[in-house]
């Protein structure tokens, strides 16, 4: 390793580690247990889990078919669709929230139709929060799954076809198990991103304890009146993220 890299590498480690220690150092551990018992914290945690898992479910339902389309079918506009799926990853989340409002808000492009035809409004609802989280997190699932689909050995699918398996059977019994690790990694990334989503949620879904106030929103608001509560909430999220990392340690880069 070039000697020139040693100092920058150490700086990078420090840069990433110091905020972590800052957070851990600020905690009053006795207070922490009290915070975790606080009903408002529990409500925010439960809601966060509910919404993030809902976002993963949506992402699996519509994201996996899209990943399949991108990986296996060559069609005109392929690169446009690819750009579309990566867009939420690079778009600032709050911009995503504004876009969602203009699309699915009560007077939005699709939203006004939903309101008039079905009486469904999405802002200020838990469904709206799930939607916001799905919007920003789905690309992670799609990209990882697509990579897995491209990397797998397609001869197994061919073999299944020669043995008389239909397309759906082949997907269910051959493809899915083979891309299992990529799918799992993608779902985990998707879940982590959804859990941490803030900008799009607060802009589109709003902020109401029990309905749309997920953990990141609760942290943001707690910062303004009770720093210790914010720190405790932050720690919970940190522990969840760490657990996820540890669970994924071997699968972080599934194509590698």
């Amino acid at each position, binding site marked *: 390793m070039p000697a020139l890299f040693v100092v920058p590498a150490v700086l990078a480690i420090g840069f990433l580690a110091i905020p972590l220690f800052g957070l851990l150092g600020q905690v009053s551990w006795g207070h922490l247990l009290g915070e975790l018992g606080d009903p408002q914290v529990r409500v925010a945690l439960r809601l966060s889990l509910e919404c993030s898992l809902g976002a993963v479910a949506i992402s699996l339902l519509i994201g996996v078919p899209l990943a399949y389309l991108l990986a296996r079918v060559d069609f005109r506009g392929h690169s446009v669709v690819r750009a579309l799926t990566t867009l939420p990853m690079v778009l600032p989340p709050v911009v995503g929230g504004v876009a969602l409002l203009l699309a699915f808000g*009560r007077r939005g492009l699709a939203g006004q139709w939903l309101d008039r035809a079905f009486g469904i409004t999405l802002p*200020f609802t838990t469904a709206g929060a799930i939607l916001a989280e799905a919007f920003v997190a789905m690309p992670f699932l799609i990209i990882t799954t697509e990579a897995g689909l491209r990397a797998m050995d397609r001869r197994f699918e061919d073999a299944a076809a020669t043995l008389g398996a239909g397309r759906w059977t082949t997907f269910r019994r051959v493809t899915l198990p083979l891309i299992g690790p990529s799918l799992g990694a993608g779902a985990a990334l998707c879940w982590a991103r959804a859990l941490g989503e803030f900008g799009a949620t607060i802009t589109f879904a*709003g902020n109401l304890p029990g309905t749309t106030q997920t953990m990141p929103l609760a942290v943001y608001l707690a*910062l303004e009146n009770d720093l210790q509560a914010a720190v405790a909430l932050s720690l919970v999220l940190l522990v969840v993220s760490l657990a996820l990392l540890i669970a994924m340690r071997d699968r972080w880069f599934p194509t590698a």
Partner: protein
Amino acid sequence: MLRSRFIRLAPLAVAVAVLAAACGSNDDNSSNGSSASGSATEIKVFAAASLTAAFGKIGQDFTAANPNTKVTFNFAGSQALATQIQQSAPADVFASADTTNMGKVSSLVNTPTNFSSNLLQIVVAKGNPKGIKTLSDLSHPDAKVVLAAPDVPAGKYAAQALSAQHVTVKPVSLEDNVKAVITKVSLGEADAGIVYVTDVTAGGDKVEGVDIPNSQNVVATYPIATVKASTHQSQAQSFMDMVTSDQGQQVLKSFGFLPPPSS
């Protein structure tokens, strides 16, 4: 080869150029008036969101009268600003929408002065489609009401007004500052909200206000103070003096603010 590399980099170059142009034009606007002789000092004024328009004007008047001093504003919920000051954010002046948040930083600021007051108003979409006329109409199950969060001064005042009238409102969202309440109503997402009289005026033609009778209303008191840790004490004091001067008071009045309570 070289040409294909150029083509691939072109969109990135365009994006950077657009960002640079946007940043450049912002600099032009804010450095207007401070390019006079000598080095310009800059003071940072942390002010409640409801003061955005009025303080913007006072800031312009201040820079016109003091060409060597640039004023930059940080408008947010007073509770957010107080927390930032507690975390040593570089503020020179703090103007809060309530005395509680000024009290939170009392050890960090010099003696505050009350410079203005404000009243609450119900804000509804233009045309008032849900026909909201009183505070108690807000408790109607069909009405989607947005309030500022309880720690935001506007949210606290609204809660006071509602509980005094024994009205229970189930808001659909609790916003982080009072301007966000207006935004949700003007976007058509919410049917009504409780904001300051001055915010409805600033909200433009997408919203209109429904008056709350004085007997049911809550008077918001706005204090202003210079920050002890400021390195520009004299300029900070000058700004504060301008706000409390006849000129500043006229500007505030023109935006719908009321004189400070006579203590």
